């Protein structure tokens, strides 16, 4: 599954995208953020307040309790400030 990071989430992690292969038991987007946060200081910084992070699955907004199985693309980003 491809992961995309935007704005300050991207800056804190230090990369814009990567391939993820989470282990069994990591099922929801909340699980995925907790798993990512344990990968290093940069990820821990990006996900220190997971409740403020917005998530999308295959380019559609998704809530943190959504399972990601079957998705090809997951994205993590701050609240949006367009317009």
């Amino acid at each position, binding site marked *: 599954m491809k992961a*995309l990071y*935007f*704005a*300050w989430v991207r800056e804190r992690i230090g990369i814009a995208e990567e391939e993820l292969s989470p282990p069994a038991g990591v099922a929801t987007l909340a699980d995925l953020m907790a798993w990512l946060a344990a990968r290093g200081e940069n990820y821990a910084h990006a996900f220190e307040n997971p409740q403020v992070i917005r998530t*999308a699955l295959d*380019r*559609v*907004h998704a809530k943190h309790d959504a399972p990601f199985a079957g998705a090809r693309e997951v*994205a993590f*980003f*701050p*609240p*949006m*400030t*367009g*317009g």
Partner: protein
Amino acid sequence: MATVSVQDADYDTAAEIAAMTAGRTDVGAVVTFSGLCRDDGGTLDALEIEHYPGMAEDEILRVCAEAEARWPLQGCRVIHRHGAIRPGDNIVLVVTASAHRVAAFAAADFLMDYLKSEAPFWKRNRRRADAPGDGGWVSPKASDEAALDRWR
């Protein structure tokens, strides 16, 4: 059916209005909203706008479809720019057309409220070198979320 563009290039508002109404005699009202980059009292060098390619277009189209379901629109056009935007330059254009003005005004207002909170764009302030502070990512305002309550 709405038309949406996400682009770095500028746009011509008059040309967009003309394109929407060309050859038609049923349109009674066209409303446009233009969002411009302000200089925050002379401290801003540029706004840098990042977006999620693909999802940005999809989300704006989804919001347009909601507007079209709520009001009898004859046209709906949105252009949102990305990249470095200088003070005074255009950021976003919404054009709505309807037989009567109330629907066109309301739909344009609705579109802007939802674009701000649901379309994946992020603004960063790049301050002038002689300005205090270091800019940084723009935070959403509480009033943006409150604005959505008007439509629920």
